[in-house]
């Protein structure tokens, strides 16, 4: 409850900041302080100290896991703002508006990590999505940004419609919005209700897939990611997406049994399609930004493995994956935002011109590709391990592994451009401070690559 209240308050405060405070730097600092307060408030909740607490009649239930996920996502937002603050200032008239939107998104995230009721899921998703539509169109004078925002808005609304229809059908079948509502068993329930429930769950599944950009509901992703201002793409592809996954797992781990055997089949189909589409199309991209958009689809495929079955290790896996993937993606987008163009050629000779920056980029790419000594390895490792524990066949692990090898191809294209091709990198001048920030991120990934426990131990206490 702390997080939901504090984040909405902070959102309102931020909104009024643009009115009194003109300096973008100060606005950024206020946002950082706000995020810090938010993290503290959430930690306070974790350890039993409430700002406000009232009975939600079971609409929200706070698990330690959900609250810990909150903390991590808030911390990631903090990192994101800390690195990208100056870039955000370049878009639009005043960055306070954007920060206020971030806080509203975080409010949505706090709902999504704690809902126990399908209506709260719907509300959480809407609170999360609407600010994202605005952020996509933030670059008002750029036609691509406008187009992307419109596309995102139309398709997002459509998927929300599907979500609502799904919820309605489920309500029709079970008479309740609660996740833990008794699932109708085939032996006792009426056939018609069974069909309603299954149909509702499948619609819900489709809508959630849309939100996390899994194939075959991914078509909006490349265009929106490409059209949105790069800094906001970075936010969308990481923190917002990770929250979507946590919500997704939350719904389906309690409900999927209603779908029975066909659930595994459906999920497997979606995962393989996602891995296939993401990885194969990413190979042929000429723009780094679009490549990253497809790679984010591919990574979503990996994260979907956490849906196979809820266990301690799948909880650990999704958190580790979300954090590591987000850090690496925030990092790589932070590099991309400084490039003059989005092509691979822009990276030529970066290794020589900016050794520190190139090193950090290499670590980000290694992590995305899942190479040992970077956090990405353990993220993939935990996912696959969770998959085996959930009783999926070894063949699925092998499929995942083959796609991981394919992903090397497009991630390493950037490394090749940086180190092995001579040329002048098309990069804007960088303050040293910026490089050190990125280096910090890279070191964080390396630490997580050797001791993922540092992050995971706190799930339990």
């Amino acid at each position, binding site marked *: 409850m702390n997080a939901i209240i504090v984040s909405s308050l902070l959102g309102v405060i931020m909104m009024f900041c643009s009115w009194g405070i003109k300096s973008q730097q100060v606005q950024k600092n206020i946002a950082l302080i706000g995020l810090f307060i938010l993290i503290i408030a959430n930690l306070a909740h974790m350890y039993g100290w409430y700002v406000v607490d009232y009975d939600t009649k079971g609409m929200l239930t706070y698990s330690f896991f959900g609250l810990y996920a909150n903390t991590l996502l808030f911390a990631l937002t903090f990192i994101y703002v800390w690195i990208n603050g100056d870039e955000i200032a370049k878009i639009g008239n005043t960055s306070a508006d954007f920060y206020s939107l971030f806080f509203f998104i975080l409010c949505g995230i706090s709902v999504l990590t704690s809902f126990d009721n399908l209506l709260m899921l719907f509300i959480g998703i809407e609170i999360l999505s609407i600010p994202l539509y605005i952020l996509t169109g933030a670059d008002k004078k750029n036609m691509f940004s406008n187009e992307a925002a419109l596309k995102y808005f139309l398709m997002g609304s459509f998927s929300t419609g599907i979500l609502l229809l799904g919820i309605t059908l489920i309500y029709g079948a079970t008479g309740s919005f609660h996740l833990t509502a008794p699932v109708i068993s085939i032996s006792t329930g009426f056939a018609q209700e069974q069909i309603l429930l299954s149909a509702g769950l499948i619609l819900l599944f489709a809508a959630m897939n849309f939100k996390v950009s899994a194939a075959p509901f991914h078509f909006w992703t490349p265009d929106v990611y490409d059209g949105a201002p790069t800094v906001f793409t970075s936010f969308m592809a990481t923190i917002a997406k990770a929250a979507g996954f946590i919500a997704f797992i939350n719904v389906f781990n309690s409900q999927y049994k209603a779908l029975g055997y066909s659930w595994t089949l459906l999920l497997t189909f979606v995962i393989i399609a996602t891995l296939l589409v993401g990885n194969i199309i990413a190979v042929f991209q000429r723009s780094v930004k679009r490549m990253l958009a497809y790679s984010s689809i591919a990574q979503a495929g990996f994260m979907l493995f956490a849906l196979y079955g809820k266990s301690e290790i799948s909880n*650990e896996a999704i958190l580790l994956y979300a954090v590591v993937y987000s850090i690496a993606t925030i990092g790589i987008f932070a590099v991309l935002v400084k490039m003059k163009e989005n092509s691979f050629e822009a990276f030529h000779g970066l290794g020589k011109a900016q050794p520190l920056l190139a090193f950090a980029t290499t670590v980000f790419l*290694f992590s995305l590709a899942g*190479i*040992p*000594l970077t956090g990405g390895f353990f993220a993939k*490792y935990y996912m*696959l*391990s969770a998959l*085996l*524990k959930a009783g999926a066949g*070894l063949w699925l*692990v*092998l499929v995942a*592994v*083959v796609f*991981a*090898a394919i992903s*090397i*191809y497009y991630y*390493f294209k950037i490394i*090749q451009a940086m*180190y*092995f*091709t001579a040329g002048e990198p098309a990069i804007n001048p960088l303050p040293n401070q910026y490089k050190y920030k990125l280096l910090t991120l890279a070191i964080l990934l390396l630490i997580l690559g050797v*001791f*993922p*426990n540092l992050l*995971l*131990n706190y799930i339990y206490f």
Partner: protein
Amino acid sequence: MMLVSFLFLPVLAAVILLLIKNNKTAQWTAIIFSGLTLLVALQMLYTPMADFNIAWLPNLNTRFILHADGLSKILILLTAISFPAILWATANNEYKNRNVFLSLLLFTEAGLMGVFLAADGLLFYFFWELALIPIYFLCSIWGGEKRIAITFKFFIYTFLGSLFMLAGILFLNAHSSDHSFLINSFINANLTGGQQITAFALFFIAFAIKMPIFPLHTWQPDAYEQSPTAVTMVMSAVMVKMGLYGILRWLLPLFPVAFMAHTHVVVILSVIGILYASFIAIRQDDIKRLIAYSSIAHIGLMNAALFTHTQIATQGALIQLFSHGINVLGLWIVADIIEQQTGTRSMKEMGGLAKKQPTLAILLVGFALANIALPLTNSFVGEFLMFTGLFQFSPWMAAFAGVSVILAAIYTLNMVQKVAYGAISEKINTMQAPNKGAQAVLIILLIIVLATGVYPQPLFSLTADTLQQLFVK
């Protein structure tokens, strides 16, 4: 604690090297640190070293365990000899950003040492990759003309292989009784025949790509040719041994049933590879490619010997792991000296080395004879034992594989003839005496070749415990 120094010293050196800008200082730092590693390795031969065992990731149940038995020791010795030798012999070669080059090489050394010492599945996988990544950068930055595409092919090939191994490790972890990664609990996991075959296949692909075994060898000659020679030496003297090591350490003890079920298939593949590589080697004009194909043939023979699962052939292969490394290192160093001085690798343009540079020619002949396993050289001992075992396994296989000895004589002596004898060619005429360092290294290596050829007993006693573990139950 001592075992950690095999990882610690190279990594420390690699980090220090990044800070040293002066080429000469960098070179000597690298040589001194790899020399220190060699000293520790020599000390290990006399004093037993305790396992290094600390907790690493408790909730994954994986530990940081280093353990050295005979098999590890012989390969560590080879690694520890190879690195200072390579660094010293190539001290005069020109590299841009030499300190980075050397640093990456020493990271590779740490990775290799880790592979040979790790007694925990996940740790093994970690080092397996750690050894590969610096090589990727070394070849792509400092390699030949077509380096980028070829190194990429090599990288994806081996990375895919190791990912399969990772899937195998996960599979074993799920089936071991205590859900740990320790090699012993992997060995004690009660796998059914079918499960063994699955896991066997996953591990074997990784090892087969690394060695490489026909038909997975296609990355190798190109990669050897395009890499800077110092890296080629590391790859062909030490890195290919990772695959053979994997078979002895992991494949055979973990999946005995599956192993026995596949002996024929693998031996036949190996023998095809041996003959195929030998025939191609005969047609080569490029001296680096010739040595590369010859190396494929030799590795194929060792792999065939391991898969006969006879004690005698395994003993031979254990010794040959070391001997092949030393021989091929000698050949590469000679080839590198010629290439550095004349700028060519084509044997057509060579000739008359014996008249122009007699010392170098003598050394070349020495290693060439070792390459064809002449009695009194170290390879003879190993190959003799391997062929005996292969004969026990199947006389036909021994006969086919035996042809490779003749073929090896053809291509190796042909090379010697073209390079060392005949009229002095234009290119060879420009050659000067190789630097002292390279000469000293070659002489030391040749002494090792002859010494272990005449008196191989130390190598036998070194590996006795591994052999006992594998064959006496």
